[in-house]
């Protein structure tokens, strides 16, 4: 049966368009219940016996939530207790329209088999489709559609009923009008809160309910609440006025970035055209006007004479969890005496364009009033304001890491209102902290959804004859892989053999992940979103399901695997004579670790094929490396730490800085070579849409700190070019100070820019500064990086081994993808560092107090930053502790040096410090460092109170 749906739409140019869609109704849409005999369904989703116990509904029943219930109570729906729910298509469409994140979560629930959520396409069902009537608003029509569907279900199940116990459907709605109308048509209908509260044995679900009361109820019951409170914040402007204001230039649109150090200060980053982006300073609660970190806001600039300078004071919101009306007074005492130059454009937030709220991790501050159910929640991220939540299990939650979602921020409330989402576990536990770390760095870490897993190849998997026809058979070659110990996702393997003409053939074989991950399927989308595999201490968050990453794609030894190979013919001077790319089948003869490979090379008694191949590779790699360094590639240093993890408790027992062997650099050289060759090939073939990686040269001012530091030891560093820098770093040596060169390289690393992915059609500067290469990309790790998969696809199209698809050739989409990959990459590095920092803390917790030697890496106004090479640990030693007498500090910017009383600290000074764990703030545990040598005495003769060190086990590695 054909119906047509008609609606009017305004076009971009201001015209009006009438759009007519055909809408087909069917009579073969099944109800999805096991109990039904009438419907010819193959695998019913809804169970025969929905076992959920409720005071309100003592009979077995299915639940139908309406749109607002889904939107607001998705946290409740996600709970494993809630099962056998019918999601109507009307609801699904409305949710999709209103909130993409909730829609995704809902889809995930529906895919989960244990949840027994059934999507009923009521809009296409002959008996439940309704047309909008004159005078009916779209919402009313949808509500009616929901009621009609619920009614139909009721009657349908009744008809199919054979047993005595009648199955019923319960409609959940928070809309008063809808509820009334549903009752009129004799449906079973409850408010969501009523129903959840009636569930037996699940009191914690109530906490998950959203605090926010939908509008009709708000008006009906809580009117006095609003009027009684005083208004703290100015009203947000409506969106239409904001848009008009932005158009006319009175408002600016930007991303809100709260300050980490001062809760009363924030900046709004206004993206301008090209380079000219500005930052607007916002100060004071009123001006911040309820904006939360990462929101997109509209700001209004103040006149120039009211501009302020950013304050240098650290302010943490310590306000007690009492009442909102108690205003903080600190707010006003800001230093008003600022120089004209330091003033920045200052403004106020007038409206919110888009909220960017997500559930936040943090801990509960218990209310002082014992019986109170309202508590303040302190997020782990200092940039997020504290959130007021209501819970009756505060006693249990205290000391746990929990997640809280913000529901709203009324203008009379000092803090936003939120609700409890879930508990992550006890603070300080390894599991919990790891979870916090992943959530706070926005690392997608959920198990792969059913949709993703369904796009995996069926096991047992084998190479088909069709594959063999299309691929080159290289199984006879003695290919081997060299990786760190314990590596299960082997994505590269190498071979090398002498040719008859005296030249050498070298092959780099990369796992052919793009063979398994086809464009635009669920797995591809998931991988594109994840962007990269994240390696934490003792845990790996895969980008692709394990079956691929550790099995089908992993080039393990003695199994046949599909590979994408890059094969060069070289002469003995490592000059490339011929390059070719081809899809192959390989059979790795050995998976070695770096150490094993090194041993084979060194062991002169071994002379098998693999060893010979390794020796050949090693020889060529040395030549390649020398050539590269001659061209000006940088060798920079960073301390990488490995933890020895106890196999049972998984606690770190020892740590060790990574050792580099010849074989490390051997593998690296060939990977670089493959990446460069591939980059050239895909750029030649697709100049507009090649995915490349660039590393911009740092601006000269970045080197200031390095130059000053070197100068203090009378060493000259040239920074005019990468080559000059590399050479002068090689030359920099100080007698009797062997560690100096490493320290200098660490400093040089910090001067560098971040390497980024980009689409060749969107940029003109392709240069990779660190590698001194004119062009570069990532090709060699498709198992753990999504960029490599794109590069594989491009290359496959270039050699006509695979077909293309529209998104691959769309430079806008490519560019958007690279933005996501860069973001995921950055976040994964932060997460990695945070994980190391946490493990360092665990390590020191078990070790107690240690005395170690370290070097001064930086000198600041009131502190020195100390690096302890043994642990790769870096920390700040402050000299001006709170509430204590500050010693006399003289800072000289030229040196830079810091004179504390009699002693002057220079860069690279050797100091001795005591390291211990400061667990006084459980949410932000710190490593405390205090100076032992040289002893700095205050005037009164008391040694400086143990200065506090922030846990900064930062090891920014020059990321290639």
């Amino acid at each position, binding site marked *: 049966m054909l119906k047509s749906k008609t*609606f009017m739409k305004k076009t971009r140019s201001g015209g009006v368009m009438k759009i007519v869609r055909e809408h087909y109704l069917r009579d073969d849409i099944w109800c999805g219940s096991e109990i039904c005999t009438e419907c010819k369904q193959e695998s019913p989703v809804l169970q025969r016996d929905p076992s959920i116990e409720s005071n309100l509904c003592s009979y077995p029943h299915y639940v139908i939530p309406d749109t607002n219930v889904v939107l607001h109570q998705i946290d409740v729906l996600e709970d494993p207790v809630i099962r056998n729910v019918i999601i109507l298509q009307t609801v699904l469409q409305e949710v999709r329209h209103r909130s993409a994140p909730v829609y995704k979560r809902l889809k995930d629930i529906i895919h989960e088999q244990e949840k027994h959520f059934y999507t009923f396409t009521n809009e296409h069902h002959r008996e439940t489709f309704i047309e909008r009537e004159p005078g009916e608003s779209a919402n009313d029509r949808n509500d009616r559609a929901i009621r009609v569907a619920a009614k139909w279900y009721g009657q349908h199940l009744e008809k199919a009923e054979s047993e005595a116990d009648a199955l019923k459907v319960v409609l959940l709605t928070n809309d008063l009008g809808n509820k009334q109308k549903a009752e009129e048509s004799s449906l079973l209908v409850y408010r969501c809160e009523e129903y959840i509260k009636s569930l037996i044995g699940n009191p914690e679900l109530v906490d998950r309910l959203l605090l926010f009361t939908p509008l009709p109820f708000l008006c009906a019951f809580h009117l006095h609440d609003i009027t009684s409170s005083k208004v703290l914040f100015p009203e947000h402007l409506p969106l239409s006025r904001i848009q008009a204001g932005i158009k006319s230039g009175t408002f600016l649109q930007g991303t809100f970035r709260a300050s980490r150090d001062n809760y009363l200060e924030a900046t709004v980053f206004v993206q301008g055209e090209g380079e000219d982006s500005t930052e607007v300073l916002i100060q004071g609660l009123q001006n911040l006007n309820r904006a939360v970190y990462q929101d997109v806001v509209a700001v209004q600039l103040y006149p120039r004479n009211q501009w302020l300078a950013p304050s240098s004071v650290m302010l943490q919101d310590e306000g007690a969890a009492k009442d909102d009306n108690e205003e903080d007074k600190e707010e006003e005492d800001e230093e008003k005496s600022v120089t004209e130059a330091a003033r920045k454009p200052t403004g106020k937030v007038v409206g919110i364009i888009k909220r960017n709220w997500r559930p936040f991790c943090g801990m509960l501050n218990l209310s002082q009033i014992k019986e109170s159910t309202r508590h303040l929640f302190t997020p782990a991220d200092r940039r997020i304001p504290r959130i007021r939540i209501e819970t009756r299990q505060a006693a249990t939650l205290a000391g746990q890491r929990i997640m809280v979602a913000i529901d709203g921020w009324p203008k009379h409330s000092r803090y936003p209102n939120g609700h409890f989402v879930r508990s992550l576990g006890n603070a300080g536990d390894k599991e919990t902290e790891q979870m916090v770390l992943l959530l706070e760095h926005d690392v997608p870490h959920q198990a792969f959804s059913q949709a993703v897993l369904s796009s995996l190849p069926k096991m047992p998997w084998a190479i088909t004859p069709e594959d063999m026809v299309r691929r080159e058979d290289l199984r006879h070659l003695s290919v081997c892989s060299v990786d760190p110990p314990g590596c299960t996702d082997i994505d590269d393997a190498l071979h090398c053999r002498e040719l008859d003409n005296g030249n050498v053939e070298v092959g780099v074989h990369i796992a052919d992940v793009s063979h398994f991950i086809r464009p635009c399927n669920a797995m591809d989308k998931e991988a594109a979103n994840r962007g990269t595999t994240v390696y934490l201490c003792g845990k790996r968050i895969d980008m692709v399901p394990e079956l691929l990453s550790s099995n089908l794609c992993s080039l393990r030894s003695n199994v046949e695997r599909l590979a994408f190979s890059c094969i060069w013919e070289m002469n003995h001077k490592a000059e490339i004579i011929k390059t070719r790319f081809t899809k192959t089948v390989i059979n790795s003869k050995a998976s070695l670790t770096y150490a094993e490979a090194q041993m084979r090379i060194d062991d002169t008694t071994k002379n098998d094929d693999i060893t010979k191949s390794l020796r050949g590779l090693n020889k060529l790699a040395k030549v390649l490396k020398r050539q590269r360094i001659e061209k000006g590639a940088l060798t920079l240093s960073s301390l990488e730490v490995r933890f020895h993890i106890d196999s049972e408790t998984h606690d770190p027992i020892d740590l060790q800085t990574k050792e580099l062997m010849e074989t490390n650099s051997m593998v690296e050289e060939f990977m670089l070579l493959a990446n460069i060759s591939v980059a050239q090939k895909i750029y030649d073939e697709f100049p507009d849409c090649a995915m490349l990686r660039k590393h911009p040269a740092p601006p000269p001012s970045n080197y200031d700190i390095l130059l000053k530091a070197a100068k203090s030891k009378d060493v000259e560093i040239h920074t005019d070019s990468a080559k000059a820098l590399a050479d002068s770093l090689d030359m920099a040596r100080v007698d009797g100070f062997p560690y100096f060169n490493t320290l200098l390289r660490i400093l040089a690393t910090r001067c560098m820019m971040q390497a980024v992915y980009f689409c060749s059609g969107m940029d003109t500067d392709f240069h990779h500064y660190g590698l001194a290469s004119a062009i570069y990309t990532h090709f060699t790790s498709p198992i753990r990086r999504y960029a490599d998969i794109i590069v594989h696809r491009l290359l496959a199209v270039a050699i006509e081994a695979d077909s293309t698809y529209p998104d691959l050739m769309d430079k806008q989409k490519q560019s958007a993808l690279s933005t996501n990959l860069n973001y995921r990459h950055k976040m994964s590095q932060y997460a990695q560092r945070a994980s190391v920092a946490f493990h360092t803390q665990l390590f020191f917790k078990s070790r107690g107090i240690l005395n170690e030697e370290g070097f001064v890496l930086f000198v600041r106004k009131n502190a020195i930053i100390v690096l302890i090479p043994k642990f790769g640990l870096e920390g700040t030693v402050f000299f001006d502790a709170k509430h204590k007498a500050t010693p006399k500090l003289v800072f000289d910017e030229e040196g830079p040096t810091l004179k504390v009383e009699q002693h002057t600290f220079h860069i690279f000074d050797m100091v001795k410090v005591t390291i211990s764990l400061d667990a006084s703030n459980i949410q932000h545990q710190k490593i405390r460092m205090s100076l032992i040598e040289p002893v700095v005495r205050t005037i009164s003769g008391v040694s400086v109170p143990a200065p506090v060190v922030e846990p900064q086990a930062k090891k920014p590695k020059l990321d290639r």
Partner: protein
Amino acid sequence: MATVQVSEAEKVYILHGIRDDLRVDGRGCEDYRHMEIETDVVSNTDGSAKVTLGHTAVLVGIKADIGKPRPGVPNEGYLEFFVDCSANATPEFEGRGGEELGTELSNTLYKVFNNKHSVDLKSLCISAGEHCWVLYVDVLLLQCDGNLYDAISVAIKAALFNTKIPKVHISADEEGGKEIELSDDPYDCMRLDVENVPCIVTLCKVGHRHVVDVTLQEKACSVASLIISVTHTGTVTCTRKVGGGSLDPESIFEMTEAGKRVGKALHAPLMKLLQQEESLGKTRQKVGFLG
């Protein structure tokens, strides 16, 4: 225009018949052929109608769009006419064959509607001088069997009657920028008053008499015809003479009188029919093009 060849004997037969007020198909001189009207036949227009008159078939679709009022009349909307002579109607229209006829027809339509009374143009104004509704009247000839003008005019009247223009309101902000907001209820729309929309009556001089609604054969016997657009009150809004022959003033007067008479008689049943169809609402059985 599609032509048929008529032999001398046939001509005499037709002429004599008309002289005696009995036409070849049995009609009198002022009788129309069988006419069928259906409205709302094209769902993605704002108003549409299909009219068949004998074997002549025309389809009219009306699209409402927002435009800028003409500078001379800032508080009025306007109508645009376009006639498409599809090659379906007759093979002569193939390529650019129908262009001339199309232009002639649409020019006539502009003339017919070029007065204040036929459609209330002020009601099409959204904001004076800035926005108004423009009604694009697209006429498609599906089949030609004579008397195109009359059929088109009836179809336009029916389509205008059927037209539903979405209601809009202007929201102004303090910056002076005006936004047009569209009502999201598809039923919330404006209807046009078509009471005064004229119908065209074409009178053909055949021999000493004149006939309405000529077939192609009759047309071949005629030398000149007069197009008269008449409102329901009998007011003539436009007259035009077409054809190679000449008309003496007396017969023009006679023809105008006849046209008024026929036109008045045409309006009443047409409006009744349209209202009747409208009142059926959703229960109406749609016939469409295959019925």
